[in-house]
């Protein structure tokens, strides 16, 4: 599944709902579904707030794949300003957002809810966040 949408804050809810609807066929637990929605929400919010500085002319791309064995791959991509220092950005409490009340916990939340998190970014060239989550397929059997 691949969708593109304008970098509008209103679309954050749409993006996480779309991801949840897509993985629903794998019969995830409520907890797994909430964790996936939260991860998508964090990544998409980052693209809108930091990548595009809330400029709605930007486009955010969301890609979801279901791989064998219940492995979910989620990719959030933007062509925004990029991240100068990815390692620094991934540190808990680190934020460049000064005007609003930003917690700097986005990547920390993604890391703790997903099994793997990869961030590829270059200043001026946009950011790609890849999250991998293994669903527990034995659940309820």
């Amino acid at each position, binding site marked *: 599944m691949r969708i593109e949408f304008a970098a509008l*804050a*209103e679309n*954050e*809810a749409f993006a*996480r709902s779309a991801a949840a609807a897509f993985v629903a066929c794998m019969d995830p637990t409520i*907890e797994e579904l*909430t964790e996936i*929605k*939260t991860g998508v*929400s*964090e990544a998409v*919010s980052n693209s*809108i*707030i930091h990548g595009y500085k809330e400029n709605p002319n930007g486009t955010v791309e969301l890609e979801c794949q279901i791989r064998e064995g219940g492995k979910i791959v989620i990719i959030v991509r933007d062509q925004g300003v990029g991240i100068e220092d990815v390692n620094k950005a991934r540190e*808990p*409490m680190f934020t460049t957002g000064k005007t*609003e*009340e*930003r*917690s700097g*916990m*986005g990547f*920390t*939340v993604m890391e*703790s809810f997903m099994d793997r998190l990869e961030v590829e970014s270059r200043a001026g060239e946009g950011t790609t966040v890849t999250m991998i989550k293994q669903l527990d397929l034995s659940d309820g059997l």
Partner: protein
Amino acid sequence: MHLNFQMTDNILVASAFGELDHHSASTVRDEIDETMEAFQCRHLILDFAKVTFMDSSGIGVVLGRYNKVTKKGGRIFLAGCSEFVEKILYMAGIFTVVDKQKSVEDAICLIKGQEQLQMEVTVSGE
């Protein structure tokens, strides 16, 4: 997301309904701050029992209100957080500064009890 407000003495109870994300956070923040200001409330209880989704934007909302309320000598409580909401707030260490209670009533009792105690201390100290 929408908010319902209730007032008991100088305590404002802000009950949130729906999804708290970056989009809704700005409205939530403004509405709470404006209501606190308009009614000159001292203490704030954030009732999250009906929050159906929250990402890290919620951390900023809680911390921001904590800073404002405590600056004016008030207290802030979180009430009714689901396990998931608690997990996110816990990651940011929110509960080291903001107390959480199971229900709004429990939080109100605590604030009122403490104010009563302070009054008694002041009276007996005179």
